[in-house]
């Protein structure tokens, strides 16, 4: 087995596969490792993505599209709701994916671009020499060995260790993650064209509950709550059971998903000498929505390209790799900053605040607006409750 590459990518999620594919397409000798024996399984996701953004990275394929949605509806705790058309919610929904197949399709693309892939292979540490990351130690089928590279890209998701091993503290506080549970429920009467979002401190404190159509008579019904408000008897699994038993007593649960997503906003430092972090590993998921698939792919694509150039130039210093971070921040930093500010306000709201918010926009036609514009209207309509956020939406 080969022991040296230009670039090693750790983790074959959306961030890793796009990074590996992009770097390989730019001529680098790439290895991507994944600790699971099956890429994409088990799923830790509600599988909602925006159509236009997904198309920037991969050609839509019906094999991994479970459903297409046209819009969504947001419910206040008292049941009042507002409807968003596709354009508005389009930033967060559009397709419901079949992530097991989607993640594997992305890995397949990385492989077809020339990257080597090793599954059931777990990174157990990084090789550090003269302050540079020079590769990893990995374990496969009980055997541990070293693999060297000029650059290691940590795409190892919320449980990322690559950063920690190289001196970047990626620890999240409980308040900086959303912890969630989801059932795939079938044989239920739901509107297959529309996603639902339910707000409220009883339903999902410091988070929300979602219903994402998954085709036929099924839907991903799940919720995520702040890690700091998760407690015995009120864990995601408990809250979800309550909701599903009450609303869909006759539904059949054919899948269980659990997982956490960073809601902290991006890491302050995403690179070090010989190292780059992408996706959930760099806390690039949206703090407000918890959406992270597209964000992970965006980062993977920038990082893959910068890594390929840096490796071929022979300069993999932090200063050189910072190009990735700079481009990423310029393109995506503002949006995440805004989401974080809104989220920080949102988690302090009582149910009556949330009711007021939704009432304030009842009847407004959002059909030509995006999420940013809709939040802007919310901020203008509720200057006191959303005090201080206005400048973010000018």
């Amino acid at each position: 087995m080969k022991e040296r590459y230009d670039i090693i990518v750790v983790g074959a999620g959306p961030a890793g596969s796009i990074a590996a594919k992009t770097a390989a397409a730019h001529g680098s000798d790439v290895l991507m490792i994944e600790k699971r024996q099956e890429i994409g399984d088990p799923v830790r996701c509600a599988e909602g993505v925006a159509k236009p953004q997904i198309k920037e990275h991969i050609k839509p394929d019906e094999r991994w599209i479970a459903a297409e949605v046209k819009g969504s509806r947001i419910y206040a705790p008292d049941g009042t709701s507002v409807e968003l058309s596709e354009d508005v919610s389009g930033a967060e929904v559009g397709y419901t994916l079949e992530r097991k197949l989607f993640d594997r399709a992305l890995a397949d693309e990385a492989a077809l671009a020339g990257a080597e892939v090793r599954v059931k292979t777990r990174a157990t540490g990084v090789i550090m020499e003269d302050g540079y990351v020079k590769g990893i130690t990995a374990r496969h089928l009980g055997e541990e060995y070293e693999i060297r590279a000029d650059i290691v890209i940590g795409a190892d998701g919320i449980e990322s260790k690559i950063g920690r091993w190289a001196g970047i503290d990626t620890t999240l506080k409980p308040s900086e993650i959303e912890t969630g549970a989801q059932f795939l429920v079938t044989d239920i009467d739901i509107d297959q064209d529309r996603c639902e979002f339910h707000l409220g401190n009883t339903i999902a404190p410091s988070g929300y509950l979602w219903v994402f159509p998954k085709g036929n008579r099924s839907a991903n019904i799940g919720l995520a709550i702040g890690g700091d408000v998760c407690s015995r008897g009120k864990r995601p699994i408990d809250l979800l059971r309550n909701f599903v038993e009450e609303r869909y007593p006759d539904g059949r649960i054919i899948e269980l998903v659990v997982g956490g997503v960073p809601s902290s906003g991006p890491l302050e430092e995403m690179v070090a000498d010989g190292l780059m972090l992408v996706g959930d590993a760099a806390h690039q998921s949206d703090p407000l929505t918890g959406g992270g698939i597209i964000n992970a792919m965006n980062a993977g694509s920038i990082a893959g390209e910068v890594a390929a150039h840096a490796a071929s130039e022979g300069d993999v210093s932090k200063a050189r790799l910072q190009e990735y971070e700079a481009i990423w921040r310029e393109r995506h930093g503002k949006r995440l900053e805004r989401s974080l500010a809104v989220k920080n306000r949102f988690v302090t709201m009582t149910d009556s605040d949330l009711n007021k918010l939704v009432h304030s926009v009842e009847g407004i036609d959002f059909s030509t607006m995006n999420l940013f514009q809709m939040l802007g209207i919310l901020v203008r309509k509720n200057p006191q409750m959303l005090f201080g956020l206005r400048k973010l939406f000018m």
Partner: protein
Amino acid sequence: MISVNRYKCGYCGACVSVCPIGAVELIETWIEIADDCTECGMCAGVCPIGAIEVLK
């Protein structure tokens, strides 16, 4: 001691992300806790399914 109920655990790795000293690791389908664990209980707190307990 930290006790992980393997029969409950959904091996999602949420617990791994909040451990202040990196003592928690997800190995495919189970969680391992390293000896330097300080029993702070952060991991137990965020578990979506209640699979982790701090045993006194």
